[in-house]
């Protein structure tokens, strides 16, 4: 009788311990899930900040900027930059696109340029990406009546960052 009673008490204690361990495991998992989702949000937020600051500075770089003009993108340079694998990770963003503000959005290649609207400069093939848009002036060298001049249009610079 006493043996059975003690066995029962050990069983009770084991169940109690199992419940306590289960409780702590669940609480720990909940805490980890909460802090992990916080971390993910923070990482996405940092990516967004980075994309925004890069978008604001790209027009000042030698790869994108016009000669002697601030806040302007030289599309002659940008089309030459398109598809250069060396630059894939250089700005640490998901993608960079330059688009003319027109009704059509035909993708540019070296052959079709300048009769096109969208230049996909860099694309890292990230699936979950969000764009930071910025209005810029897009300029290129153009020939008209034997004279070369800077032809400028309004466009958008799109810098994509990855949502984690």
């Amino acid at each position, binding site marked *: 009788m006493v043996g059975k009673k003690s066995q029962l008490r050990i069983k009770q204690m084991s169940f109690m311990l199992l419940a306590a361990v289960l409780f702590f495991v669940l609480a720990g998992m909940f805490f980890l899930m909460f802090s992990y989702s916080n971390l993910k949000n923070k990482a996405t937020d940092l990516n967004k900040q980075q994309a925004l600051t890069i978008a*604001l500075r790209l027009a000042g770089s030698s790869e994108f*900027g016009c000669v002697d003009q601030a806040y302007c993108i030289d599309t002659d340079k940008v089309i030459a930059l398109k598809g250069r694998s060396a630059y894939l990770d250089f700005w640490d963003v998901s993608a960079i696109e330059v688009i003319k503000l027109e009704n059509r959005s035909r993708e540019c290649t070296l052959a079709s340029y300048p009769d096109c609207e969208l230049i996909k400069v860099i694309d890292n093939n990230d699936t979950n990406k969000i764009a930071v848009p910025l209005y810029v002036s897009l300029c290129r060298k153009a020939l008209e009546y034997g004279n070369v001049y800077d032809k400028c249009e309004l466009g958008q610079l799109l810098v994509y960052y990855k949502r984690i």
Partner: protein
Amino acid sequence: MVNFRGIRSKKALEMSFSFIFAMIVGAVIIFLAIYFASSLIKTSERQHSSEIAKEISILINPLQTSIESSKEMSIELPQKTKIYDSCYIETPFGRQTFASAVESLGGKYGKKGAEISIYNKYIFSNSIEEGKKLYLFSKGLNLPFKLGDIIIMTSGKYCFVAPPENIAEEILDIKNKGGMKNIEVNNSLEECPTDSTSVCFDSACDISVYKASCIDCENEYDIGYVYKNNSRSYYVKDLLYGAIFSDKEVYDCNVKRLMQRAYQLSLLFVDTSDVMAREGCFTNIDADLAIFASAAIHLNDSVDLLNIRELAEGRDGLQSKNSNSLCKLW
């Protein structure tokens, strides 16, 4: 409750068994709780350090110059922090990594956080910067086109002794804008605070700057070398600041990274000139760009910078050819 009535008593044996069982399991639970709590603290400390390094890398972005000649800022950190700056030469652009460790209770530094890689910035600092406040300033490096921004990051005190006029003006200008409060400009070494690193021009100090002879230079210290810790770092133009404020390893690595950028930009400009030529806009500097690109990518030591400068800004250099061209590339 423990019963000591006798080892032969069944009740006493039963009680002591449950007591021992509870003690062992309790100890295991307490041990696990302490273990998980301490590893959680370590992880969050590491997470915090990683966040600081990432935030610094983002905060540095506005330091990139466009039309302005220089920019300055300071970063106040929540607690005393060590910033680890490492530089790697890799194809195509090399990279710099930043990691930080924050001071915890007892003045000890916690574990280093995750390393954040940066590919498009050139930050000149010591391998380890330590402090609660970081002072930064940046200057664009044009050689002959803009290669990037030289970003100087310091935390220690510096004292410039009798610098040439253009450098003194530049530092005072940055200080007037509220930046680089850790730099002093004095007329003699005696006036420098004892805890500061002295920087002298053409005389021996903690850091000494010596000019090289130059015919077509705008200022007398436009090219030369910086003597520091028994080694020479050659500089051209504003790389002077990089050589003064950074370790030789970081400086040499960043110079090579800048030359990798020069190489890639030269190739890009050759392709751009082909695109412009389709509209009748000719540059005629493709051959010079190819020579410059080859010299840039084959830079072995900072002394080669003097040759690069000659190709870029010498009498028949790239800069003058581009300026005389109908269609400028930069």
